């Protein structure tokens, strides 16, 4: 069984400040790790992912996450946030399932609120 814990349900921060959204997972097998973002009234979209290789992964809009196997963590960071980063962020871990599919388990989400 696998599970994902997002340690903060809400993170308020001022614009241009750094932010870290925390994610810990548990799994007995090798996993793939993801961060998805959901803007208001929209579906989720992929922010970044770790499949293998370098443990530090980056997104095109300045976010980065580091896979830490010993601490079973995949925290999301951005050195300077913008108002437009206000959204819900979901951490997810995937395992292989029936038919070779990848079955994700999502965390409960962290609401990032950026204040001017």
């Amino acid at each position, binding site marked *: 069984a696998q599970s994902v814990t*997002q340690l903060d*349900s809400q993170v308020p921060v001022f614009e241009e400040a750094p932010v870290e959204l925390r994610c810990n997972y548990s799994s007995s097998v090798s996993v*793939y790790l*993801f961060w*998805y973002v959901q803007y208001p*009234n*929209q*579906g*989720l*979209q*992929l922010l970044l*992912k770790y*499949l293998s290789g370098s443990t530090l992964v980056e997104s095109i809009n300045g976010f980065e996450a580091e896979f830490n196997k010993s601490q079973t963590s995949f925290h999301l960071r951005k050195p300077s946030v913008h108002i437009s980063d206000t959204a819900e962020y*979901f951490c997810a871990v*995937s395992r292989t*399932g*029936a*038919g*070779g*599919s*990848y*079955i*994700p*388990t*999502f*965390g*409960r*989400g962290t609401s990032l609120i950026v204040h001017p």
Partner: protein
Amino acid sequence: DVKVTQSSRYLVKRTGEKVFLECVQDMDHENMFWYRQDPGLGLRLIYFSYDVKMKEKGDIPEGYSVSREKKERFSLILESASTNQTSMYLCASSADSATQYFGPGTRLTVL
């Protein structure tokens, strides 16, 4: 660009009605998923399908069924809607990369 569409953005139904939620993807993905999203609970997997006519239960399948007659279409069925099924329903598809592509969601209210 991958596109996943859902038949309705908002839906209001009465208790006991049979409800169909439709999802269509245009990227020939093998895998399709249905989730419900509730505040504070994140996304919970209801059912998924890894091929036409194949389906697997997720974490919360009770009260739901699914149908996948064509590769591009995955339907979620509420046989007899109840008020505790009021929620946001999200459909997703994926290929081999494990990345999921989501539709915009259907907000279902059961009165």
